[in-house]
């Protein structure tokens, strides 16, 4: 009897201690909906130190924002920004700031979101974070940023969006579409956008990117330069740092070279007998990916691109899929055997 009371007391005590953390855990999707090319154990074995310690690269937890006019004093039109639009609110996160911080824990249109950027893999992905925040673990998988959530301390490789260790291991985050584009293109599409300010609370040289530059492309970001860290899988169909538009859906994965998408305007493909359509956005120079269950034919000339994304005949019958731009070597390290559209090495 007394042993039962003791056990019950311990369970209640454990619940009381851990409940606040679990209550604040980021919202996730169930394990069954997450499909991975490698086992969680394989990812865990591949994790390695990137050099800095936990939070050695400080996430921005209290972002300050500024106007387009203020940002114009220090951003060039060709500078890279990571754009986010949600329910009437637009944000631009300059790559020059994110290269030093990698994560911004923001609230956009009432939704707590983490905007994440990994300079080593050139990938920007957004995630819903609930009441939690994400930090930089200082560790890498396939050169990719491993985040941790501060509610449960689970570890999440950014390109997977799935926890590989900790209490949430195997669960996936809800992705939020980000746009990798230029400052000039973003402010033309969203003239009222707010911009992440250099007033981050930390002292960094925001005029300099330690890896090279995107305006013009140089240093580590050159298409033919080599990755710095070991990867789980290699694929020589493209140069290592060639940027692709990538998406995965129900266990299948595809990557599209932007030159091929630019030229075609509309691309269609089938993955595991499911049809998809990819639309080129000529102003932001990115792609919008949709499931196309009815096999609709989309005429690119009939489309318009505005703050909300793509509009036009047939679009309402499509189901949007989150996609992102990423360096080829990192994508195939996580998704070996990925379909590739546009293998030709056009610039």
């Amino acid at each position, binding site marked *: 009897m007394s042993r039962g009371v003791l056990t019950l007391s311990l369970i209640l005590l454990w619940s009381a201690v851990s409940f606040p953390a679990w209550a604040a855990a980021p919202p996730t999707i169930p394990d069954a909906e997450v499909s991975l090319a490698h086992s969680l154990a394989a990812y865990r074995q591949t994790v*390695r*130190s*990137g*050099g*800095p*310690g936990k939070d*050695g*690269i*400080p996430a921005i937890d209290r972002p300050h924002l500024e106007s387009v006019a203020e940002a114009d004093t220090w951003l060039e039109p060709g500078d890279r920004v990571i754009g986010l639009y949600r329910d009437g609110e637009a944000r631009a996160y300059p790559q020059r700031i994110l290269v*030093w911080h*990698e994560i911004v824990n923001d609230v956009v249109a009432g939704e707590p979101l983490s905007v994440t950027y990994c*300079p*080593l893999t050139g990938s920007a992905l957004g995630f819903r974070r609930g009441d939690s925040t994400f930090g930089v673990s*200082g560790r*890498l998988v396939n050169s990719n940023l491993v985040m941790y959530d501060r509610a449960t301390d689970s570890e999440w490789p950014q390109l997977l969006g799935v926890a590989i260790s900790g209490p949430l291991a195997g669960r996936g985050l809800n992705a939020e579409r980000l746009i990798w584009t230029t400052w000039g293109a973003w402010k033309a599409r969203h003239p009222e956008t707010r911009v992440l300010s250099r007033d981050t*609370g*930390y*002292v*960094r*040289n925001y*005029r*300099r990117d*330690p*890896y*090279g530059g995107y305006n013009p492309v140089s*240093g*580590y970001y050159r298409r033919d*330069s*080599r*990755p*710095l*860290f*070991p990867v789980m899988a290699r694929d020589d169909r493209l140069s290592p740092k060639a940027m692709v538009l990538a998406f995965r859906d129900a266990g299948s994965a595809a990557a599209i070279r932007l030159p091929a998408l630019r030229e075609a305007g509309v691309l269609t493909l089938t993955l595991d007998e499911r049809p998809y359509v990819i639309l080129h956005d000529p102003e932001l120079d990115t792609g919008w990916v949709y499931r196309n269950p009815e096999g609709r034919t989309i005429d690119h000339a009939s489309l318009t691109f505005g703050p909300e994304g793509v509009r036009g005949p047939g679009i309402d019958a499509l189901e949007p899929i989150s996609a992102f731009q990423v360096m080829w070597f990192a994508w195939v390290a996580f998704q070996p055997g990925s379909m590739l559209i546009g293998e030709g090495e056009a610039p």
Partner: protein
Amino acid sequence: MIALARLLVALFSRPATLAILLGVAFGYALLFLWLAGDIAGGGQGGLHLAFPAWERAFESRGVLRFEPVGLIELGPWVWTFSPLDTLIALGIGLLLGSNLAGLWLVRQAPVACTIRAPSVGGLAALPALLAGGACCAPLVVIWLGLPIAGSLAVLAPWLIPLSCLALLVGLARLAAHYGHRASRPSGGGR
């Protein structure tokens, strides 16, 4: 210990050795801070100073790497100034300067002194130059595009202590040699 003190007194009391010591110390410190990423380009001319984050002076951002507290712009250069990073850079620089100045001093010994001076030299200071850098790799490795960052990251915590230890050992050997030479009768042979 006495031998080391005697060597240091000798280094600081002679203008030539003092010049070598301080020149090497400041030169190395600047090189260290540049390769660590604390000093870089991006300045827009003139001199601008701002120190908005003194409260972060002791915040660590890696092993023996600390948060900058201010920004110093001088001409084309920008220095994200961390007091502790700067102290570490100067500390290693002084050790290296003492080694090189000490080596120069004992090499000035009379030809009759047959014991060779230990030549640890500047190599011991090299590992520390790989300790800093961009978030995930030393700048030299990034510039050269070498796929060895994974191996270096494992060693990173040990690079600065390794340099300091090697330089201290070198200095101790030089001090012993200097003490031995000083204790021999002038012009003494075998």
